[in-house]
Each structure stands twice: as structure tokens, then as C-alpha cells.
């Protein structure tokens, strides 16, 4: 048996056909993990007991593999009568997993804001909420944009995990082709190459974003 490039090429349309799913999952998980990560970081800052709880959740999530979370949610949620389509389970799983990492990103993004900013806000009489909303949050967004961009790429590369819980994305489609044709190498290579190209393209976008952010705002 040898590698058949023609056969490989014939897999491309089929696998490309589910790129939308891959991108959807990535975007939704990115949003989900931002929300979870930000929430965790706010919880960590807001009080002693919530702080410890949040810290523990973050550490726990970061010490466990994404695959384990996907299995956990996929098999456990139905036991609690929560029935979600596999793609939703996958998105929740990736959101939890990457939420733990993004919490650190938000922490770094807030810590990077000079102390003087909140002091100036305090000196002007701004309430804690107003300081957070109008002074710190906008600056934090600037600081976290690039790291979140990088995690976007990581999430993209994690979408194939969802094949293990029956989500129709690129790796799953490759295995479908393989089980139909009994040829594994070609569809898998195609899926790998396509995903690699996607990841490299996304990396370029992130680099563009970084460059734009490096320039001070000019209106």
C-alpha cells in the first residue's frame, strides 16, 4: 500500500465542507472561555473565600486534559437530564478548559495596568464600578487582545478533540472517509494539512492584530 495523492486530493472537498463547523466551534468556545475566564478572575479578586474557590477551580482545570473534560461532560450531563447536542457539549468543554487559561490572561492584563490609573480614578472620586468600567476595562481589553488571539489558535487546534464525542468536524469527517474507503493515511493527512493551514492563517491575523495594537491610537 502506498500513499495515493489523487485519493488524498479527492478528500479535500469533503473535509473542507465541514470547515464551517470547525470555525463555529472555535469562535463559540473562544467566547465561552473569555466569559468564564473573566468571571473566574473577577471572582478571584472579589473576596477571600470566592478568591480561594476561583483559584482552586483555575488550578484544577489547568491540571486536567481537555479530552477528559469532553468525556466527562458528554457522559455525565445526560445523567443529570441535561441533553445537549454533541457540538454544544464540545463548546462547553473547551470553554471550561480554556477558561482556566484565560483567567490568567485577564489577570495579567489587569495587573499590567499601571497602579497610577486606579489612583487617579480614586482621586477623582470615581466609584469602584466606574473605575473598573471606564478606566481599567478598556485598558485591559487592549492588553488581552493579543494573548486571546493566540489562545484562539490553540482552541482551533483543539477542535479535532470533538471527533471523539461524535461532532461532525474535520477529523471526524476524515475518519468517516477512512472507514468507507479503508484508506486512513490520505484523509488524515488532508485533515492535518488543512487544519495546519487554518492555524497558520489565524496566526498571521493575530500578528496583524499585535502590530496594530502596538501603535498608539490616532484618531
Amino acid at each position, binding site marked *: 500500500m502506498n500513499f495515493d495523492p489523487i485519493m488524498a486530493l479527492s478528500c479535500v472537498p469533503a473535509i473542507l465542507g465541514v470547515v464551517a463547523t470547525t470555525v463555529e466551534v472555535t469562535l463559540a468556545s473562544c467566547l465561552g472561555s473569555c466569559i468564564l475566564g473573566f468571571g473566574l478572575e473577577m471572582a478571584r479578586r472579589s473576596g477571600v473565600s470566592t478568591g480561594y474557590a476561583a483559584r482552586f477551580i483555575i488550578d484544577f482545570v*489547568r491540571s486536567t*486534559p*481537555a479530552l477528559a473534560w469532553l468525556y466527562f461532560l458528554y457522559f455525565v450531563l445526560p445523567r443529570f437530564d441535561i441533553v445537549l447536542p454533541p457540538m454544544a457539549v464540545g463548546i462547553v468543554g473547551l470553554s471550561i478548559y480554556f477558561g482556566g487559561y484565560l483567567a490568567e490572561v485577564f489577570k495579567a492584563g489587569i495587573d499590567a495596568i499601571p497602579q497610577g490609573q486606579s489612583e487617579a480614578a480614586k482621586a477623582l472620586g470615581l466609584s469602584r464600578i466606574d473605575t473598573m468600567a471606564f478606566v481599567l476595562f478598556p485598558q485591559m481589553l487592549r492588553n488581552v487582545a493579543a494573548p486571546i488571539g493566540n489562545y484562539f489558535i*490553540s482552541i482551533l487546534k483543539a477542535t479535532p478533540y470533538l471527533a471523539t464525542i461524535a461532532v461532525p468536524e474535520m477529523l471526524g469527517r476524515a475518519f468517516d472517509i477512512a472507514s468507507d474507503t479503508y484508506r486512513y493515511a490520505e484523509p*488524515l493527512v488532508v485533515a492535518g494539512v488543512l487544519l495546519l493551514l487554518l492555524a497558520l492563517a489565524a496566526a498571521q491575523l493575530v500578528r496583524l492584530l499585535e502590530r496594530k495594537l502596538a501603535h498608539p491610537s490616532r484618531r
Partner: protein
Amino acid sequence: MSFGQLFLGVLGGLQVTATVTAYGLLFAIPFALVFGVTQHLTSGAARIMITAVIEFWRSSAVIILLFVFYYALPVFGIRLSATAVSALVLGLNTGAYGSQAIRAGLQSLDKGQLEAASALGLRRQHSMLLVELPQAVRVMAPTFVNELIQLIKGTALVSLVTLSDMTFQAKQLAEIEYNPVGVYSALLLAYFVVCYPITIFGRWLERHTGGARSLSGEF
């Protein structure tokens, strides 16, 4: 089965997890050192090639790479055990990230060190080995600890290529015991128990080497 028994059952896969991790390090450490140093030192066409290799191993989705190597290598006449393939893929992926950490560490060094070394008559290779690398490694130690944890978590994927690691054990148990809540909770707990102490060690290292804050670029 009680939760405790489930937990021990899952831990039954710990040996495979550890083995793949250890073999993975055999690939990761040399790759990181060699490619990190050469990327730092070279320029032009050589650097582009080195970067390409690093980027390939860094930007590819590990799970797809694992499947591709597992299924495609035999097609090209290369027969490797599942353990070897897993160690190779996971190790080189981790090594690629490690190479970036080494490069960052080398770049962050005070140029004065290099000048002092050459003033003392040390040739570039010797100064690299004796002066720069040890310092770079010290500075980036927390990052390397993170990479180790990533590697350990990455071994969960080998359950998909028939190796009996902890995740594989969990899936087996889940089918036999019909208690997904217990089994998959035990799985998460098992990884936590393995990885969290290493995280603590990494934090201790950070505090005591006064080194760089760990750069997290990947999950």
C-alpha cells in the same frame, strides 16, 4: 465499585502515562535545546528552515498528527509501536514549544555576559554551553515546568491509539461499571493529583529563581 476503587482503577493507567511522558521528554529536550539554540544563532536561509521545522511541530494539531503518524507511517513502510509514535509526536510538539522558551531565554540575557565570555577567550560554542544556556534555562524554568504539564496532559490522547493510559482505563471502566459520573470524576481527579503538585513546584521555582513569569502560549 466505590469511588475509591474507580480512582485506583484509573490510576492503573498511570504507568503508561508516565512511560509515554518519559519517552516524550527524550524527544522533547534534545529538540528544544538544539532547535532553540540554532534558531537563536542562525540567520538567513538556515534560520528559515529551522523555523519551518519548529513551526510545523508547534502549529499542527497534535491529535491529528498522532493519527497521521499512527496510520500513515506503516504506509511508508515504517513500523513503530504505538508508544514510540506517541512519544515522538507528543515529544516533538512539546519540544517545539520548548525551543521557543529557550530562544526567549537566550534573547533575554544580558549582552554583557556574551562580551565577558568572549573577552575571557571562550569560543562561541563554549560560551553558549557554559554561560548562556544555563542562565537561559534557569530563567525559563517555570515555563519548562508548564511544558511538562502540557506533555503529561497530552498523553491523554494516546488512549485513542490503543495505549492503556489513565484515560483509556477510564473509558474501559465506564463501559463495565456503567457509572460515568464516578469514572470520569475519578479521571479528572487522577490527572489533578498528578499535575497539581508539579504546578506547585513550578510556582516555588518561580519564587526562588526570580525568573521570568511563565509564558503561556499554548494550553
